[in-house]
């Protein structure tokens, strides 16, 4: 067990080490983040002016679709799994993940799945062009032939997610060091445990819905075709039964990361630990009974509209508990503003903003105006970019010294933060206005009166993109060298991960530590 990594590239192919696999997940996710980001820049470049300048509408649709799919399944989810791989065993005092070979399998499926998905761009008829939500019949009767490859890519990335989630559940429930009771676990571990349950529950439903599509397209079934007695709205119900828990899969681990960082830099223990755990569990439960708030305009009975409206609003309660706890943790703390803390504070403020626009969208009668406009785009980018992306970035800065043994460049980190912070607000804030004024989403051309705000948004997008280059540069510099980090890295941080040397040895906790 005392061995270090094997030399050569087969180390990465054959590895069973949670740290190796975590690093691969994180690098893969960053590559996908850049790829999906470039597609977003194509979108923003086209929308800089009304009319068609750069791309054709058909290709524009492929860009919006692939941007969404790549960011959700290729960037955000793998990044969280990468952080879980690195941190969960170290946080609970385990020697590795519970099922190390399956762990490797879960990772390596992803590059193959995304190679398959992006190869559709070069196929006859082009890539999927029906939006990342792939509503039938756009994705069935009117889909390009490449939809079959999309379906199978979703199948294998789903298999990867389910195996990854099972691994995390087994690790957390079975591998905790003696004395690490459930209510002593760091919140990142708690949020990941709950996220893993969400994944196991809904990824099979996604597999089910793409299977129905496949059967409708190629084998003559009538799931989504009214001519045979089916219903296209059925697609939306099954998809969003997966889709709503899915959006919480992309935010719950973020809550865990921020709950680790804020106490460190506020130099106070986390306020309301147990209420954080219960709030996370409540949010996860509620995520299963709100799915039709994505479908207020399809013509549901009034009872359905009301149920899904109230259930959705209920989510604001546990979420409010969390925001209150983060703010209370900072209240009267001796705060310092290192890069991870900056990203975390921005997370709290901007995620709350995204939450508020979510509350607006939850009001069924008002949603009829917002539905399918740029207001929705603004809303979910506010919860995903400063929510998921900022928390991942914060986590990377926070734990990077532990991973590499070197401190990152703080000045460059702050430059990255301010560029990203300004960039994202300039990009997404104006979208609220054009959305309320009626600009529809997923459209390559727009009416003249939206031109100003769209130009501002496009400028912000390129600034946000440039910020990521600073990030990449900073991470590479830190991996290569720099000021040595101490074992504790920060001032009195809480958690087992800080009790091991920096950089963390290849194998940690081969004999479990005792937690008091």
């Amino acid at each position: 067990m005392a061995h270090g990594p094997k030399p050569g590239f087969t180390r990465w192919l054959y590895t069973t080490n949670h740290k190796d696999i975590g690093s691969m997940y994180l690098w893969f996710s960053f590559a996908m983040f850049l790829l999906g980001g470039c597609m977003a820049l194509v979108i923003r470049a086209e929308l800089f002016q009304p009319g068609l300048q750069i791309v054709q509408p058909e290709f524009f649709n492929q860009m919006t679709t692939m941007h969404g799919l790549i960011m959700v399944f290729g960037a955000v989810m793998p990044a969280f799994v990468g952080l879980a791989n690195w941190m969960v065993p170290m946080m609970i005092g385990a020697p590795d993940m519970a099922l190390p070979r399956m762990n490797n399998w879960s990772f390596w499926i992803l590059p193959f799945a995304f190679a398959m998905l992006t190869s559709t761009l070069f196929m006859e008829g082009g890539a999927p062009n029906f939006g990342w939500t792939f509503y039938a019949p756009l994705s069935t009767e009117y889909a390009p032939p490449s939809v079959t490859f999309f379906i199978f890519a979703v199948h294998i990335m789903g298999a990867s997610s389910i195996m990854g989630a099972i691994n995390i559940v087994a690790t957390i429930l079975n591998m905790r060091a003696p004395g690490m009771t459930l209510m002593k676990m760091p919140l990142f571990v708690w949020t990941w445990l709950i996220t893993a349950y969400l994944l196991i529950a809904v990824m099979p439903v996604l597999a089910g819905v793409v299977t129905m599509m496949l059967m409708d397209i190629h084998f003559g079934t009538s799931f989504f075709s009214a001519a045979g007695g089916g219903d296209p709205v059925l697609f939306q119900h099954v998809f969003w039964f997966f889709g709503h828990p899915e959006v919480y899969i992309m935010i719950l681990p973020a809550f865990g990361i921020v709950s680790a960082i804020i106490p460190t830099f506020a130099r106070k223990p986390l306020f309301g630990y147990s209420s954080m755990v219960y709030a996370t569990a409540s949010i996860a439960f509620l995520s299963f009974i709100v799915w039709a708030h994505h479908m207020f305009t399809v013509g549901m009975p009034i009872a359905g509209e009301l149920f899904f409206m109230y259930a959705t609003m209920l989510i604001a309660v546990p979420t409010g508990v969390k925001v209150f706890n983060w703010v209370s943790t900072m209240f009267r703390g001796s705060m310092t503003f290192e890069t991870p803390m900056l990203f975390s504070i921005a997370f709290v403020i901007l995620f709350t903003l995204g939450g508020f626009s979510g509350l607006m969208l939850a009001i069924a009668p008002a949603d009829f105006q917002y539905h399918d406009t740029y207001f929705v785009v603004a809303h979910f980018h506010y919860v995903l970019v400063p929510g998921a992306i900022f928390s991942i970035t914060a986590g990377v800065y926070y734990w990077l010294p532990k991973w590499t043994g070197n401190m990152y460049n703080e000045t460059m980190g702050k430059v990255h933060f301010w560029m990203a912070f300004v960039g994202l607000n300039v990009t997404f804030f104006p979208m609220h206005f054009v959305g309320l004024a009626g600009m529809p989403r997923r459209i390559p051309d727009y009416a003249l009166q939206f031109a100003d705000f769209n130009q501002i948004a496009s400028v912000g997008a390129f600034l946000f993109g440039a910020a990521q280059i600073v990030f990449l540069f900073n991470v590479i510099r830190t991996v290569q060298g720099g000021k040595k980090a101490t074992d504790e890295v920060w001032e009195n941080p809480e958690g087992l991960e800080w009790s091991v040397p920096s950089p963390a040895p290849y194998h940690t906790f081969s004999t479990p530590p005792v937690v008091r």
Partner: protein
Amino acid sequence: MATESSYYVPEQSRLPIFATIGLFLTAFGAASWINGGSSYIFFAGALSMATVLWFWFATVIKENMQGLNSDQLKRSYVWGMGWFIFSEVMFFAAFFGALYYIRTFALPWLGGEGDRGSSNMLWDGFQNTWPLMVTPEQAVAGDSAKVVGPKGIIDPWHLPLLNTVLLLASSVTVHIAHVYLKKGKRQGFNLWLGATVVLGFTFLFFQVEEYLEAYQQLGLTLESGIYGTTFFMLTGFHGAHVTLGTIMLLIMLLRSVIAHHFKPDDHFGFEAASWYWHFVDVVWVGLFIFVYVLGA
């Protein structure tokens, strides 16, 4: 060498990357085959997947026999299998949910009921019935319709009832086999497990019989509207799971008969397969009630 308390973390392994390549070839091959390409890639992928899984399980069994697997590690397999079965439950839930939605909401609305009844204007004269013998398209276009309902459906009280008895019995026999194994009586274990495998194959035989009857005599096919869709997708995926479960149990039987695997206190491979078997049994009870009896 691992001590009693330490958790065995395998060093490096070629299995997962080969499994990845196998899975990728299977998925890519299936997609190109369905899109009109050749089937070679798919079969090459499926074959390599099967080979990798063979070696993967062999490795795990060998490690267990070398005493590398602590009790704690074995619990990881227990958690893993348990939650895998739960994910399968959710897969079926999607299809049961679709059946429920179609019958409770979509078809009544298509038939003009409630405030959503305006959609009936598109399919004038369509009547909501279940089983759906006349599709909305047929109601409008008559004989020129492309999606035509079935002429007859499967009577739940013949083959399906027999299959219910067979599958419920097989859950009992696999349990008796487990009891014998825990008592260390290999003869009884082999016998009752063998009986379970026979019951599994018999079930599959009758299921094929039923499909032949549906296709050849009743005009009930995958393409006969939403009834045929839900009927074949639900029973078809269940049948695929029974096939897999039967193969799993057969392999457990061969491991016991040929290689004398399994000890009274250490036999999770068999136990996992038997859990899977109970799971497909429960799904069948759901199918018998919601697809066959309440669908007739």
